[in-house]
């Protein structure tokens, strides 16, 4: 049994009267590739947003590398409106901003690509290195950090070569074809030097061949950078091929988890995907 890197504990996210994530519990071990699947609107991205600090959960906690990094309990108006479970079990508030979570060692990509439009491919990756910069604004302005800057640039160059984007490094990020933009987003996340990589639908909009390449790519970077990968995906081929474990979400609730084989034969999962709720 390897050590747990991420633990989501009793997390509930409620917007007004709508419970988007209902008592989510999951654990991811170091080095694993874990997928989070479920029909549209099941709360997958919301779960990602909670883990990365974009949303503050209504109740519950998130542990990262053995440390509790996020915790909340219903407050104010929410106290009376709260519909989830485990009310009253949490008393503290820990609400780091997303950048802090990233610096702790978690980096993500977005469902709808969010690259920095006016920047080149190289700069997109380089900027992600900023969170690892040790120089302050004065030494950076007066170029007293040459060494660090040079190291970062070399590092980015290497990273771009690894992901196969070195030949387009001076192009504007937005001028790349879609598949490469996805790849660039991953490279950018890698530049932040994470232990845990969160990918939000990395294969969205890709054709089968591109998906296949991506599948190999994810496995490849996991090994190369000693990462743990947590991903949301609809392409079942990709999910089944690379995930070691899968969590299935429907209407905010975990309806199943297990190995790909287990999930494929799980009746509730099949119902959720094929049932009347499909397009809800």
């Amino acid at each position, binding site marked *: 049994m390897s050590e747990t890197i991420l633990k989501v504990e009793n997390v509930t996210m409620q917007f007004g009267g709508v419970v988007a994530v209902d008592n989510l519990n999951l654990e991811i071990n170091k080095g694993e590739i874990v997928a989070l699947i479920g029909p549209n609107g099941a709360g997958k991205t919301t779960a990602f947003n909670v883990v990365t600090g974009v949303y503050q959960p209504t109740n519950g906690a998130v542990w990262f590398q053995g440390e509790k990094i996020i915790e909340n309990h219903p407050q104010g108006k929410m106290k009376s409106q709260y519909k989830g479970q485990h009310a009253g079990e949490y008393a503290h508030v820990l609400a780091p901003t997303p950048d802090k979570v990233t610096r702790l060692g978690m980096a*993500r990509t977005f469902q709808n690509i969010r690259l*920095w439009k006016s*920047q080149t491919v190289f700069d997109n990756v380089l900027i992600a290195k*900023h*969170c690892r910069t040790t120089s302050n604004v004065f030494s950076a302005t007066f170029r007293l950090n040459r060494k660090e800057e040079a190291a970062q640039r070399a590092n980015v160059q290497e990273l771009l070569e690894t992901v196969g984007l070195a030949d387009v490094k001076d192009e504007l990020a937005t001028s790349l074809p879609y598949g490469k933009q996805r790849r660039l987003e991953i490279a950018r996340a890698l530049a932040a030097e994470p232990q845990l990589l969160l990918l939000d639908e990395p294969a969205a909009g890709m054709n089968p061949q591109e998906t296949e390449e991506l599948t190999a790519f994810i496995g490849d970077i996991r090994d190369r950078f000693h990462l743990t990968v947590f991903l949301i995906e609809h392409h079942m081929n990709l999910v089944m091929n690379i995930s070691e474990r899968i969590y299935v979400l429907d209407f905010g609730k975990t309806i199943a988890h297990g190995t790909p084989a287990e999930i494929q034969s799980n009746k509730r999962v099949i119902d959720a995907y094929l049932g009347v709720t499909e397009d809800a």
Partner: protein
Amino acid sequence: MKKQNQNLVFLAVLLVVILGASIAVDAALPSYHIAIKVIKKATVYALVAVSMNLLNGFTGLFSLGQAGFMLLGAFSYGVLTIPVDKRAGVYQYFDGGAIKFSLPEVFAGFLGDSLGSVVGMLAALLVGGLLAALMAWLIGLPVLRLKSDYLAIATLGFAEILRAFFQWNALGPITNGSNLLKSYPDFAHATSYIILAGALVALILLLINSTYGRAFKAIRDDEVAAEAMGINLAKHKRMAFIISSFFAGVGGGMLAMYNGTIAAASFKSTMTYEILLIVVIGGIGSISGSIIASFLYIFSSEWLLRGLDSGVFLGIEAPGVFKNGFRMAVFSVIIMVIVLFFRKGLMGDKELPDLLRLRSRRKEAPSK
């Protein structure tokens, strides 16, 4: 690396040309010549426009507090540099004011007259910048959490509040209340202005091309992504705000220097708008654009287009049309055309060297 070298060479050549030109102008023309006055004013506006661009163009924070920070810088400069023996006259209603020293004189005491007063003047400018930065730090805490247009209106309001304070008679012994500050020293040569403002703009350039500058641009392009990539939004926004305000403060001090008089009443929101429009004309996100636009704007409004107001322009005599206010009317129409049809302004987000490179790349293209 090649690109950087090219930029360096280009900048060096540009610098030498500009400096040579300004020294030549200074030598050829008397200090009261309009060309020198206009160069001075344009240089100051260039600095202020660039500082606003750092915030609005590079960090994507739409702040309209520029006039307020300039006010702080202007007053600091005036208050700290008025010669002691002239204070009784300037602070005629406040018994010579509360401050009984003058930085240029203090420094002249141990650095000699000419060097000392220059150091004193620079120190006063620096104090102005630092005060503006301090104020930015204070109001940045609450205000920077606001989203785009709320931020704009809050900073605008802040500038108005500041103006009220400076007109308050209770602070009169320092600010001279509603009355003018004057009789403080000025650099006689346009070259001094160009060197000073040029050095400050160069600092901004260095900052923008540093890792922090890249982080600012990331925030501008996509705040959510920037935050997800570990950039602390609050810290970096505040940093940009403080730095921009520092330069606005120094710019305000230089404007005071140029004007020869300081009155709080002139630092109204109109001034901020004017600077914003300069930034827009030059291109939001382009340092060289802001500089070029400042020179174009100040040269034409203060000098070249005066004919539009006084009946004769380009040899055409039409006193009925070319009367007072026509110049500014024409100007605002041009600005609207730029805002609506050339939204990127003169330079877009490109700098001068970029344009040169673009051309050379285009030449190479067919052979590729």
